C-alpha cells in the first residue's frame, strides 16, 4: 500500500508516500462497474435483438456525404457494457487501480455509457451524430469564450464571477447598437466595448478599492440585469426595429469544407467560431510563451515577487480584467449577432456561470476550457435532441449535468483544479 520514493518538497527533501486512498480506488471502480451494469440493465437488456442503429455522420446541409454508421444495436450494447465492467473490475482488483490514469479511464467509461445511451435511443431509427456534433460546437462557443474571459482575469489573480453579467450587457448592446447602426461589425464592437465598461467597474471596485472580488462580480451581475432589462423595457418594446440586427452569416472556407465530418462542422460556420479558435490558440500561446504571459501569470501567483522585479501589479491586473471583460462582451454579442438575431432578457440563462465552470473544469488552461465547453455544449444539444428521439428522460436532468459535473470536479472527487495562488487576494503595495 505504501511504497516510499524520494520526491522533493518545497523546503526540505522528504520522502513521498505514493498512497492511493482505497476508498477512492474502490469508489471509482464501483462507479465504473455500476455504469457498465446500467448499460446492460437499461439499454442492452431492453434492446430488441436484430434491430439496427444508424448514426448519420453528415451534418444537415452539407454536400460532402460520409457513409452512415450502421450497427446491430444489441450486440454493440453488450460489448460496451462488457468493456465498462471489465475496466471497472481492473480498477477494483489491481493494486491502486489505474492510479494516475483513473480519471482518464473513468472518462472513457462515461463516454461509453453516453454512446450506449445514444445507440439505444436511436435503435431502429437514425440519429444524426454529425448534426449533434455541429450543435455541440455551436453551443460551446459562448461557454468557451466566457471561460477564456475567466482565464484572462483569474490567471492574473482577479476572480471573475461577472462573466454572466458582462455577457448579458454585451448581448444587449450588440443587438441595440447593431440595429441602430445597421452594421453587425459595429454591433460586435459595441458588445465588446460594453463588456469593457463592465470590466472597468469590476477593476475599479476590486483592484482600486480592494472590494471582495466576488461581491464586485455580484454588483456587475445585478447591474447588468438591471440595465439591460431597463433599456429593453424602455426602448426595445416600443421600437421593435431597434432589436433586429440580423446575424453574421456562415463563411464557407473552400476546400476545407470538403474534409469529411470535420469540414462541414467547423469550416462552415460564422465568424464567432473562427474567432473562438483563433483566441484559443492565441491565448494558449501568449500565456505560456510570451513575456506578456509570464508577467500576467506571475501577478496571479505571487504579486509581491512580480512587484519586486519592477512589474506593475496594479496595471497588469487592470489590463487582465479589461481584456477578460472584452472577451466576455464579445461572447455576449455572440448571442444576439452570432446566433439568435435579437435580444431578450433571459438569453444568457446562466451560461456565464457554466463558462466559469468550464474554466475550472479545464483547470485554467484555454484548451482545457474548450474541452469542458464542448462537453457542456454536448449536454445542451443532446437535451434538445431527446425530444426528437422520443426518449422519456426529462431534458432538465441533462441540462443539470454541467452543474453537477462541476461540483464533482471542484470537490476533487474526479480531477483537481489548481487555481493561481493569489487569486482573489487584493494587492496591497505598502504593507505598513
Amino acid at each position, binding site marked *: 500500500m505504501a511504497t516510499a520514493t524520494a520526491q522533493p518538497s518545497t523546503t526540505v527533501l522528504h520522502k513521498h508516500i505514493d498512497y492511493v486512498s482505497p476508498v477512492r480506488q474502490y469508489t471509482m471502480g464501483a462507479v465504473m462497474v455500476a455504469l457498465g451494469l446500467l448499460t446492460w440493465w437499461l439499454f442492452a437488456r431492453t434492446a430488441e435483438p436484430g434491430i439496427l442503429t444508424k448514426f448519420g455522420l453528415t451534418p444537415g446541409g452539407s454536400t460532402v456525404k460520409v457513409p452512415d454508421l450502421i450497427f446491430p444495436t444489441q450486440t454493440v450494447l453488450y460489448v460496451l457494457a462488457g468493456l465498462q465492467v471489465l475496466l471497472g473490475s481492473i480498477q477494483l482488483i489491481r493494486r491502486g487501480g489505474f492510479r494516475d490514469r483513473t480519471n482518464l479511464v473513468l472518462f472513457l467509461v462515461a463516454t461509453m455509457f453516453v454512446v450506449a445511451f445514444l445507440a439505444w435511443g436511436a435503435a431502429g431509427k437514425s440519429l444524426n451524430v454529425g448534426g449533434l456534433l455541429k450543435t455541440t460546437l455551436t453551443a460551446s462557443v459562448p461557454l468557451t469564450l466566457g471561460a477564456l474571459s475567466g482565464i484572462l482575469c483569474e490567471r492574473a489573480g482577479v*476572480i471573475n*464571477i461577472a462573466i454572466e453579467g458582462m455577457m448579458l450587457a454585451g448581448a444587449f448592446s450588440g443587438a441595440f447598437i447593431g440595429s441602430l447602426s445597421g452594421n453587425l461589425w459595429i454591433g460586435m464592437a459595441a458588445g465588446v466595448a460594453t463588456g469593457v465598461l463592465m470590466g472597468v*467597474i469590476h477593476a475599479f*471596485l476590486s483592484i*482600486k*478599492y*480592494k*472590494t*471582495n*472580488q*466576488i*461581491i*464586485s462580480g*455580484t*454588483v*456587475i*451581475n*445585478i*447591474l447588468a*440585469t*438591471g*440595465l439591460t*432589462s*431597463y*433599456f429593453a*423595457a*424602455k426602448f426595445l418594446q416600443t421600437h421593435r426595429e431597434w432589436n433586429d440586427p440580423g446575424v453574421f452569416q456562415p463563411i464557407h472556407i473552400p476546400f476545407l469544407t470538403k474534409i469529411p465530418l470535420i469540414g462541414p462542422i467547423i469550416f462552415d460556420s460564422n465568424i464567432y467560431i473562427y474567432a473562438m479558435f483563433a483566441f484559443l490558440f492565441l491565448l494558449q500561446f501568449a500565456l505560456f510563451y510570451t513575456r506578456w504571459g509570464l508577467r500576467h501569470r506571475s501577478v496571479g501567483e505571487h504579486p509581491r515577487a512580480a512587484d519586486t522585479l519592477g512589474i506593475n501589479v496594479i496595471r497588469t491586473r487592470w489590463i487582465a480584467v479589461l481584456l477578460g471583460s472584452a472577451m466576455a462582451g464579445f461572447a455576449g454579442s455572440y448571442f444576439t449577432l452570432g446566433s439568435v438575431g435579437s435580444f431578450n432578457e433571459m438569453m444568457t440563462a*446562466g451560461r456565464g*456561470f457554466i463558462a*466559469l*465552470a468550464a474554466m*475550472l473544469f479545464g483547470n485554467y488552461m484555454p484548451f482545457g476550457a474548450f474541452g469542458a465547453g464542448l462537453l457542456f455544449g454536448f449536454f445542451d444539444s443532446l437535451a434538445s435532441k431527446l425530444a426528437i428521439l422520443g426518449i422519456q428522460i*426529462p431534458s*432538465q*436532468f441533462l*441540462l*443539470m449535468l454541467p*452543474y*453537477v459535473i*462541476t*461540483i464533482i470536479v*471542484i*470537490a*476533487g*472527487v474526479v480531477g*483537481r*483544479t*489548481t*487555481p*493561481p*495562488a493569489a*487569486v*482573489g*487576494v487584493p494587492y496591497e503595495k505598502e504593507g*505598513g
Partner: protein
Amino acid sequence: MSVENDTPEIPSAQGSPPDKPVNGSKKDAGQILIEEFTPDRSAQPRRKRIFQTILVPFLAILTGLIIGGVFIVLTSEEFYTALQVSLWEGIKTAFSIVATTYGAWFNGAFGDWANLAAFFETGDKAYLVKFFYPFTEGLVTSIPYIFGGLSVALAFRAGMFNIGAEGQIFLGAIFAAYIGYAITGIPAILHIPLAFLAGALGGFLWGFIPGFLKARTGAHEVITTIMLNYIAFRLSDWLLNGPMQRPGSANPVSPSIMASAELPRFFDDPIRFHGGFILALAAAYLVYWFLWKTKWGFDFRAVGSNPHAARYAGMKVATVMTLSMALAGALAGMGGANEVMGINHNLASAFSSGYGFDSIAIALLGSNHPLGVVLAALLFGFMRSGATTMMVTTGIPIDIVSILQALILAFVAAPGIIRAIYRLKQPVSAEGITLAGSWGGK
C-alpha cells in the same frame, strides 16, 4: 527577570496607556446590542460609534439615489426635448422628472396621503385601505428579503459566502408547497408549522451540500452554491412540468396548498400582510441571540474570523462550516416557504427573481447583523413594492430597482468610494471576516 517591555514595535498602533480595568458590570440589552452592531470596540464614545456605523450605509443609499436620479433623467426623452428649448428648461425638466418619479415611488411604497385625506373627508373605509395597502405591501415584500439577508449574514459570520440563497429559496418553496397540498385534513395549528419547517428543511439540505463539500474537500462554496442554484432551477422546472404539476393544467404550476397551510392574514383583501412578517422578525432575533449570546455563536464567529485559530482552540471547524451553510440554507428556505404559504399559495416556475443576489446586498448593507439586515430588507422591500406603482404612473421600468441595488451594494462594499466622495476619515478596522481566497479542491 525583567518584566519591563516598553519597546514600541511595528505594527503597534496603540500609543495610549492602558485603561483602568472596566468592571464586569451588567449592561442593559440595548447597550450590548449597540456594541455588537458597531463592531469597532475601541474606546470611542458610544454615540460616535453608532454614527460611524450608520454613516456609510446611509451615504451609500443617498449616493445610489442621486446616481439613479441622474440615470433616469439621462434616459428620459422629455429631458432631451426640453434641452432643445433651453438649458434652463432642461434642468427644470430634469428636476421635475426626478421629483415625479421618486414621488410616485415614495407614494407607491408608503401610501398616498391624498387617500388618507379622502378618508377623513368621506369616511369611506375603502380610502383607508387604499392608503395602508402600499405600506403593508412593502412589509410583505420585505419578508423574503429578511430571510434571505439573514441567511447570507449568518453564513458570512461563519466565514462562508452563501451565494446560493436563490436555490435554497427554491427548495424551501418546493418542500413547503408539497407539504402544503399533499397533506390534507390536519388543523392549521399543525399544518402551518409542518409546511414551514419542511421549507426550512429543503433549504437546509440545499445549504448542507456546499457546506459539507467545503468542509470535507475544500470545494469553494461560491462555485458550488452557484451550481446548486441552477440545479434547483432545473429541478423545479422538471417538478412543475411533471410530478408536481397541477392536474389538468398545462402551465408549470403546482396545486394550491390547503387553506390549513396558509399563513394567517390579519386584514381583509386586498391587504396581504400576513404572519410571515412576525416569523421573519422572530428569526432575526433568534439569529442575533444565537450568534452573540451562545457558545455556538462564538464558534461560528471565531471560525468566520480565523478558522485556523478556531481549529487550534478545539472548535470543530468542519462542523461549523457545514452547519453554518445548512442553517443559512434553512433561513433562505423559510423565505421560500413564506412566499408559498403567505402570498402565492402555490408554486409556479421562476417565482423567485434574483432574491439570492439581492440578499447579498442586504446582508452587506446591514453589516451582517440581524438588526441591520431587517432594516436593509425593509428598505429593499419598500423600494421593490413602491416601484410597481412608479412604473404604472411614470413609465419608468421597475428594473431601476436592480440598478439602484447594484449601486448601493457597490458603495457599501467599497466604502472607500463613499469616503472619497464625502471626504470622510478612515475608521478603525471592524470585525473582519475571511472570505474567498481560491476556488477549487484542497
